[in-house]
């Protein structure tokens, strides 16, 4: 797997998640795709990061201090850089009863993210999702 072509070399990704393990796991995944990775471990720190860093991809946890922290980050990112892709990762996609994969356009417009994914996602699947949002 390490021999795979690193298709995103030269690009920067930011990850904001208050679960230090997921921060680490996603960092490993994204670095494996070639990204340089900058991370923040809380919503507040994340908001600062959005201002300070120039990035090509953003990955946010959904539930941090608040149940919708990820949506708020996503809203702010899209306001500033409408074309930079945003992915939201969550443990609760099933519990909330919201099927993110077939949201109406209206809801998508409100959530602003380019994808909402389950946290158990495997490295290869995440790569596919990233390829998808970059192909847009």
């Amino acid at each position: 797997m390490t021999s795979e072509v690193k298709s995103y070399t030269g690009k920067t990704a930011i990850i904001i998640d208050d679960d230090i393990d997921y921060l680490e796991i996603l960092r490993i995944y994204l670095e494996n795709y070639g990204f340089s990775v900058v991370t923040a471990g809380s919503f507040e720190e994340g908001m600062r990061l959005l201002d300070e860093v120039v990035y090509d991809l953003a990955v946010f946890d959904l539930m941090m201090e608040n149940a919708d922290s990820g949506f708020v980050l996503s809203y702010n990112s899209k306001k500033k850089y409408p074309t930079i892709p945003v992915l939201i990762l969550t443990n609760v996609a099933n519990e909330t009863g919201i099927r993110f994969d077939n949201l109406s356009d209206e809801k998508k417009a409100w959530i602003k993210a380019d994808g909402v994914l389950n946290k158990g996602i495997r490295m290869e699947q995440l790569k596919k999702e990233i390829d998808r949002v970059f192909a847009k």
Partner: protein
Amino acid sequence: MQKLNLLIIDDEQGLRYGIVRTLRDFSFKPDEYDDEVSFQISEAGTGQEALAIMDKQELDIALVDYKLPDINGVELLNIIREKKYNLLSVFITAYASLDVAVCATRNGAYDFLAKPFSPDELKNVIRKASSRIILQKKAKKLEEEKKLIRFEFLSVLSHELKAPLNAIESYLRIIESRISGEDIASYEKMIKRSLERVEGMKKLIFDLLDLTRIESGQKKRMISPVNLQEAASKSIETYQSMASDKGIHVVLKSEKEILINADAGEMEILFNNLISNAIKYNKDYGDVVISLSKENDAVKITVEDTGIGFKDEEKSKIFKEFVRCRNELTQGIEGSGLGLSILSKLVKLYDGSINLESQFGKGSKFLITLRKI
């Protein structure tokens, strides 16, 4: 004002009119109910009409005449029972014989009115039937609320288990596919964190068992004199290595003997929760001071730390189940989110109270009062 739906089924228009006149302005307050009850009345002259109304509308009470032009009243009761309409029937008959009464009751009538009846007799029967319906409605509502709470509890619980499971699974996959190379040393941190999260899940399950035991009241409580000084010392010993790892100094200030009539297991849970929190959420080389004192018929336990503390908006929430303070300082600290909820339930068993003084970034002081039971 609670409106109950009442249907009068009688072919005699005069009788229906009499009932309407008696009940349309009638209202009363059932025992142990904080609202008045009154009635929304509809009328049917035949059995078929009655059944048509029942199909369309939810009814609470039906006054059923024995003699209807199309169906016999007892037959109508039968149909009501078979169709499982959720209503109480009151049987009206001119032939107030025991036979009819038994037959009607057997077919599902709740009560009886013998013709001719006075407005007061009618009101009494209606009062009785209504009280019963209100009671049923209350029980049903309570049951639904309980179901909802249980559902919420389970969805939060499944999330609390899923988060560490997802993290452990991802770590294992990374190790399995050797993403960071062949050297096992590169994976040491991942293995350590996976073990920590397994530990966290174990703690969650143990806490859940404690909580269930306390809440169900099924565990037999063994009340005997417990020396809190000893109980606290034992708990400090349990968490000594955790404290040493962070260089935290734990002090117990107490007389040799502080006795309280209590369940020893409950006191152990209480101290374990307080002391492990004070260490876990402390800064490195911080302090934990536990003081015990007697005061008339109560004992006071204070546990003070020099740790993370609580933001003001967090203070009111933290005793609820699965509430954990998520901020930059609590990151990476494993917790079930149940410890303080267990603590507050335990304290209630001792007619006690919890007082929390805390400043974010400075530390917390939990003051627990337990009364002798």
